């Protein structure tokens, strides 16, 4: 079963706040599963870089860059899906139709074209439960 990993799955592994411990552990459990084919896209690599960059506000710029690059580079082996014209234009159309974030829409479209059965993330109001055959995989309550 092919599962598309949203940036939130990776970002959650860096969230050290005690209140987020459960979500963090759930993200690790998903990443460590061997019964699922975990994939993501090149856009997610950029989103992880951006998230770690923002989380390190105030750090020395060189160190900040190094930390963000390290976290993002680790996602690279999983980013087997590329984001091209098809995914972006599909995402723009989808975002206009369903009023959810453009980047979310591009990710969902990428999952669809990448023949994923599931889209793994943490609940967010903008996330659809199902889209064109791709189903929502709640990391906190895994459906499979």
């Amino acid at each position, binding site marked *: 079963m092919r599962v598309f990993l949203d*940036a*939130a799955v990776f*970002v959650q592994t860096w969230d*050290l706040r005690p209140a987020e411990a459960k979500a963090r552990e759930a993200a690790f459990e998903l990443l460590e599963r061997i019964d699922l084919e*975990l994939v993501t896209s090149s856009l997610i690599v950029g989103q992880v870089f951006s998230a770690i960059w923002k989380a390190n506000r105030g750090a020395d710029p*060189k160190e900040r860059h190094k930390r963000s690059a*390290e976290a993002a*580079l680790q996602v690279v082996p999983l980013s087997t899906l590329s984001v091209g014209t098809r995914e972006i234009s599909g995402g723009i159309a989808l975002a206009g139709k369903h009023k959810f*974030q453009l980047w979310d829409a591009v990710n969902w479209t990428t999952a669809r074209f990448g023949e994923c059965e599931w889209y793994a993330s*943490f609940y967010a109001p903008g996330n659809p439960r199902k889209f064109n055959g791709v189903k929502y995989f709640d990391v906190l309550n895994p459906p499979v």
Partner: protein
Amino acid sequence: MTVPTPKPKPKRSEPTRNRTIRVPERVLRRVAVKLAREDRKFNAVAVDLLDQWADTGGLDDQLTPGQAYARFARKNAARLVPDGAALEKRATSLMDDAE
């Protein structure tokens, strides 16, 4: 009563499309050198990372890419993200600025 003579209006500059913008070669060279340096820095990070992977068994065929990522994140979380950092719940919403 004297009426002040109106100042002549400054001439409108030519439309951009008719103007050729020339970037001096030295500026281009400086940019090229800067980019090359940045690239080297980035490559140095990548090499470090591969070493770390090798150390933690991340290059082991037995590990899936997800497991290798999880291992790296567990080991480096405290170092990569300072304590108390307010991480956004969803990385996608962090891209708002770019939209």
